[in-house]
């Protein structure tokens, strides 16, 4: 059963009382909230996600609530609770849905240590994944949103999860987070895309989330081989340019964007080596999304024979 099987009022009631057991990628989140904007956001952007049977094992127990302080009468706030514990400082009530998204990212990025976790968008085509690690502001989410509206499968907008045991990437397709001008750019680029309400004045500026394509959600259990590591950079007026990056540089830059590279120690080093060895690495500068789509469409995975050379030595 998917979230869409519940009517908006049923969903709201369920979220308020027992909560829902929401399946995103390989994780189950037990989610409760009394905040109407969060219930609406879930009804809109999570409609195609499976609901797991009630009262099963949940990886994360999350509650979005309103703190019971004096402020609730004049400047209401929202609070993200992880199994009853406050993780972040409260935010204005208006930002409750983005806060849920950030909180769910936190749940994964602070726990999931059987994976090497990289702060990156990930898309797939023809059985191969492209990881796009980048600091905020480089346009990775915009590019990711454009690609998934042009036939690429969304694996994640925020977290590349590379299983340490076999080097495969585990999908975690969730709504794509867009900021400021990017929201209108993608709206114009794909008028059929579904967006959550814009929220202004967050720590990241104005944010809105775009619904993940239904097909990406349906295929969330299919782990993928990574073929490319691409560092995107939006530069106004630039001609699209894909530039080969030495593996050594790519290694260090991916490590810089990793949440748990250092925590995983030797395992992390091995997983990273395997990843970089199997991938073609590029710097990618662009200004027009159509050019980017064309260049990504022409990407070819590295010839299979030297993939395993280094991996076996380790």
């Amino acid at each position: 059963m998917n979230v869409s099987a519940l009517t908006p009022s049923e969903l709201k009631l369920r979220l308020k009382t027992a909560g829902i057991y929401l399946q995103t990628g390989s994780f189950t989140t037990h989610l409760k909230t009394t905040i109407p904007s969060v219930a609406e956001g879930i009804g809109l952007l999570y409609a195609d996600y499976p609901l797991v049977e009630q009262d099963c094992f949940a990886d994360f127990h999350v509650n979005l609530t309103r703190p019971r302080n004096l402020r609730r009468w004049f400047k209401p706030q929202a609070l993200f609770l992880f199994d009853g514990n406050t993780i972040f400082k409260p935010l204005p009530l208006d930002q409750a849905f983005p806060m849920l998204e950030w909180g769910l990212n936190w749940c994964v990025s602070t726990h999931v240590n059987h994976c090497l976790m990289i702060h990156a968008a990930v898309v797939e085509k023809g059985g191969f994944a492209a990881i796009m690690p980048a600091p905020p502001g480089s346009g990775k989410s915009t590019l990711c949103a454009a690609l998934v509206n042009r036939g690429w499968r969304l694996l994640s907008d925020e977290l590349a999860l590379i299983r340490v045991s076999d080097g495969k990437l585990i999908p975690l397709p969730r709504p794509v987070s867009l900021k400021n001008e990017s929201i209108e750019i993608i709206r114009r680029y794909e008028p059929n895309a579904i967006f959550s309400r814009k929220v202004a004045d967050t720590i990241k500026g104005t944010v809105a989330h775009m619904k993940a394509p239904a097909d990406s959600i349906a295929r969330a259990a299919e782990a993928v081989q990574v073929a490319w590591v691409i560092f995107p950079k939006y530069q106004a007026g630039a001609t699209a340019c894909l530039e080969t990056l030495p593996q050594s540089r790519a290694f260090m830059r991916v490590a810089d964007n990793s949440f748990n590279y250092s925590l995983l120690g030797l395992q992390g080093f091995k997983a990273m080596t395997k990843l970089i060895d199997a991938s073609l690495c590029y710097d990618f500068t662009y200004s027009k999304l159509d050019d980017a789509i064309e260049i990504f469409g022409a990407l070819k995975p590295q010839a299979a024979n030297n993939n395993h050379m280094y991996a076996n030595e380790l």
Partner: protein
Amino acid sequence: MIPNYLILQALREPEALISLSLLDWDLLIRQARRANLLARICLLLDERSLLEQVPPKPRQHLEWSRVISEKHIQAVHWEITQIRKALEKVGVPVVLLKGAAYVMAKLPSAKGRLFSDIDIIVPKDSLSVVEAALMLHGWAATHHDAYDQRYYRTWMHELPPMRHIKRKTVIDVHHAILPETAALHPDSAKLLAAAQLLDGYDDVKIFAPADMVLHSAVHLFHNDQLDQGLRDLVDIDSLLRHFSKLPTFWTDLSVRAHELGLMRPLFYALRYAVHFLNTPVPSGMMEAIQNGRPNPLTLFFTDQLFERALLPAHKSCSDWLTGTARQILYVRATWLRMPSLLLARHLFHKAFISPKPE
């Protein structure tokens, strides 16, 4: 009586965990995570070769936490190498306390134990050379407020915590195990004199077994923060089980508690270790430390408080009195640290004079 919470069952009898339902696992993982004991439960199962029998979902959570604890052990070794290097020329042996001691001595209490600071103890008259040497090697004082400096340097049993400017690691340099202002005054010279060299080192020491247990007890029952209370009780349980293999351990322990005036904290430590974790304590032991037993009325109230506050701060382990119990124990701990007039002055300063964070 303490209800039979899953987390306590898990610590007492890890073998029984393999029959848990998924729903029980859900709750156990949450209680254990809140108590900072998830990695320990993973290791307890693993050393019994039972980890494979845990259903995949909860097993994954256990293994996630194991990754953190493995990295932690490595980081502690590295940090202690750095501390030894910094103190090489000072000529004072580093005596490790608590978590750092358990890890370096490879004691069972180190299994899956996570902690944020390294604690060491040095003679009081070496404090300034130790502080200077650490500063030369990159540790900088925290708490720059003049009042806080005075609070630590005049009244407390440690320097203000020092943080390494590059690694951001924190070291607490102690000269005693209780504040100068506390009513109980275990003699640091005696503790240091009995400290033993760590196997394989000539510049790192740890407390003697009985002293280690007593320090752990003092730490738990004089602490104002009990959110790690169960973890600290697990330390005590684990130390007692481990050291009880030593032929004279229990006699040493009661003799030493008399000598250092730590009968009361030891009484509580044994009482609650037995209540919560079924720690095997020889029958004569409780009689041997009867002096530490409070009067029946006090004991009744203390039981009410600790039987609540030592549980994980999770809603499944709380009742309507838990919050109050934690608050009362906070006040109790602060009161044990300072005479009442000084305490009133301290709280007044903290409330009205100290600058507020933010």
